């Protein structure tokens, strides 16, 4: 493998830190000024992200003019202990460049949308403070020049995610969901920490370039351990199996949060981590196979559960789980598929953000109703939302010539290209996932916007204001066109990061895979239209066990409850019992024994002088007798 080097930044590119500083300053100002900035705070939040987006565009064009397309900046020394030297360094390269554009670009649109969406909320300023905090943390995550910086961002987005999921903290379900997300992520973060310790131990540095250059000398087991630990961290942040349960619950937060954090950007951090660590994963076939297996499993898992849900945001959340499964599948396949994963990530960022904002617009119109069984016929009253949602719908199911077609089809083809039976399994799962995606998204779309109206008369649906439909239209256009426009240029743009790769065909040619995918997608969509054209029952019908299982999240919650919650409760109960009976028992028993003994001994002190005299005399007699015995002998 070629030596990885990062050229120092020059000119405008040495101002990379400003990208992070803008939203961070926004968050600081909004949080510190408090209620005083209530009137203009949201516009400041929008402006900082907008400014960061403009700056990112300028830097992106500056980056494309460079030969090696990297710009590394060392800000200051973070930690310097003995051999270990951790710099607060930033790295702008093709990979972090596209992420920066996605985060600030889509982030900007969602900020604008949130101005309208949160208009009725008293805490809108606080919301924008947290939102800016999130953007700043996410930029640290992708711009970090070593694993430590990435980790800081990684924890920062976790914090922002927690704050925003639990934004309506008066609602118990939201507060619980926030804690759940935070704790689940924390468990997975142990993987990240251990991976960093392994790097420090084996390579002696956390710097991307040094780790990647030194990775070749790692033993097989070490490389595998490193890969699996990073994968565990990635699975947690991206809601992949076995950490998927927090992501659907995260929908308790405001809808712009779901769109920005839990669809477009933060949850894709896991994909970023694996793509960034590609030299480590390339070293070990087993680690890559595990990534592929997790991706394939999760994409089916999410799609199956998505088919059974009736809450508009939860369907989209499970859809996110499933789509990120595709990205994991792609980055696990390695080689040319890394770029495919990133392209799908970018395309997904557009259409899923659009879909979420569309669902927010629907909820806005329907008095925060989220049950798709109570929608229907909305296309007449909400034309803009309808049109943009339709754009997201055709994009996600992957109809030609929309976004998903250019980003998802190549992944399916690449999965089939894997050698041996694994290719058939991964490709088959991806193909089945595509059919299920088409089914549940069509079901969602048809039940929401078509069919007879099923809402009650006291609801007066209306189109959202322009500040909300504007971003929707832009994201809708992005959903339609982004995939086709990005597929080739982004793949070429990312060559410096992932290397040059020959396209090779395995079990199916690209054309065969495309035809198969399009066929199953149309089949799935047609089936959904046929079944749900006439609306649906308002209460769930008794169903066969697969449907019941899917409604119960395929047992994900039950497993958590059985494997962690119940043993946790038992352990807590046991430790309370040990404390109360064991530890307290010893202390209390000891004091009771001492007290009892002294009470009994105290009874010897009768207060009668004559009895004392008797004891003294008996003592004296005993002593004398003992003396006599000794003397006589």
């Amino acid at each position: 493998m070629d030596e990885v080097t990062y050229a120092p930044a020059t000119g405008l590119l040495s101002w990379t830190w400003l990208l992070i500083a803008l939203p961070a300053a926004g968050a600081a100002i909004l949080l510190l000024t408090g209620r005083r900035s209530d009137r203009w705070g949201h516009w400041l939040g929008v402006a900082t992200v907008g400014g960061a987006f403009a700056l990112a565009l300028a830097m992106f064009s500056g980056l494309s003019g460079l030969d090696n397309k990297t710009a590394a900046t060392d800000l200051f020394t973070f930690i310097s202990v003995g051999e270990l030297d951790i710099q607060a360094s930033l790295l702008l390269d093709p990979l972090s460049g596209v992420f920066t554009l996605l985060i600030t670009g889509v982030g900007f649109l969602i900020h604008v949308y949130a101005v309208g969406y949160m208009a009725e909320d008293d805490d809108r300023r606080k919301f924008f403070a947290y939102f800016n905090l999130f953007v700043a943390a996410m930029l640290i995550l992708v711009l970090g020049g070593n694993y430590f910086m990435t980790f800081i961002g990684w924890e920062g987005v976790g914090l922002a995610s927690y704050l925003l999921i639990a934004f309506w903290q008066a609602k118990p379900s939201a507060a619980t969901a926030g804690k759940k997300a935070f704790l689940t992520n924390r468990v997975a973060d142990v993987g990240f920490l251990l991976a960093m310790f392994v790097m420090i131990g084996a390579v002696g540095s956390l710097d991307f370039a040094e780790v990647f250059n030194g990775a070749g000398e790692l033993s097989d087991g070490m490389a595998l351990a490193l890969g699996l630990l990073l994968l565990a961290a990635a699975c947690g942040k991206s809601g992949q199996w076995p950490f998927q349960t927090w992501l659907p619950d995260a929908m308790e937060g405001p809808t712009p949060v779901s769109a920005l954090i839990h669809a477009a950007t933060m949850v894709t951090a896991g994909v970023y981590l694996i793509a960034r660590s590609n030299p480590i994963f390339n070293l070990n076939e087993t680690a890559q196979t595990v990534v592929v297996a997790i991706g394939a499993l999760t994409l089916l898992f999410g799609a199956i559960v998505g088919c059974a849900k009736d809450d508009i945001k939860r369907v989209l959340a499970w859809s996110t789980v499933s789509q990120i499964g595709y990205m994991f599948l792609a980055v696990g396949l390695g080689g040319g598929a890394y770029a495919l994963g990133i392209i799908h990530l970018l395309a997904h960022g557009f259409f899923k953000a659009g879909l979420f904002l569309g669902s927010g617009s629907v909820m806005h119109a329907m008095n925060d109703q989220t049950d798709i069984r109570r929608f229907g016929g909305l296309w007449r009253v909400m034309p803009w939302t309808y049109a943009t949602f339709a754009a997201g719908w055709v994009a996600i199911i992957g109809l030609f010539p929309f976004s998903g077609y250019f980003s998802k089809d190549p992944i399916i083809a690449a999965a089939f290209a894997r050698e041996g039976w694994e290719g058939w399994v991964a490709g088959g799962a991806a193909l089945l996932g595509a059919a299920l995606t088409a089914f549940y998204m069509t079901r969602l779309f048809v039940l929401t916007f078509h069919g007879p109206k099923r809402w009650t008369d006291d609801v007066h649906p209306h189109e959202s204001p322009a500040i909300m439909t504007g971003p929707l239209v832009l994201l809708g256009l992005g959903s339609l066109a982004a995939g086709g426009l990005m597929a080739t240029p982004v793949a070429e743009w990312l060559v410096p990061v992932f290397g040059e790769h020959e396209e090779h065909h395995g079990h199916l040619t690209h054309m065969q895979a495309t035809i198969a995918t399009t066929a199953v997608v149309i089949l799935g969509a047609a089936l959904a239209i046929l079944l749900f054209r006439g609306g649906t029952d308002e209460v769930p019908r008794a169903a066969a066990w697969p449907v019941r299982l899917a409604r119960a999240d395929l047992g994900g919650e039950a497993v958590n409850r059985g494997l962690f919650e119940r043993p946790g409760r038992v352990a807590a109960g046991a430790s309370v019992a040990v404390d109360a009976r064991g530890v307290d028992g010893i202390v209390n028993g000891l004091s009771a024994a001492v007290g009892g003994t002294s009470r009994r001994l105290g009874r010897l002190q009768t207060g009668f002088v004559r009895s004392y005299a008797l004891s003294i005399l008996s003592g004296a007699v005993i002593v004398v007798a003992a003396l006599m015995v000794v003397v006589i002998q």
Partner: protein
Amino acid sequence: MSPEHYLILSAALFTIGAIGVMVRRNSIVVFMCIELMLNAGNLALVTFSRTTGTIDGQIMAFFVMAVAAAEVVIGLAIIMAIYRSRRSASVDDANLLKA
């Protein structure tokens, strides 16, 4: 007279004193019994001094007398104080110091 007789007398006096301390309730009588025990000891000391031909025992007996004199002063004062506060000279009535 052989010294054994003195010693037997001393032991008898001491025993009478000890029994008196334990069986009598009147503190004055208890006090007199204590004096009896002390003087039984003195008698034994003087006897031993006589048998060994040294004067150590006699000196020790003087010490005992001196201590006994001091003890009588303090003891009688305590008995007076108790009697004034409790209107009783019985040792069994002064039984507050107990668990």
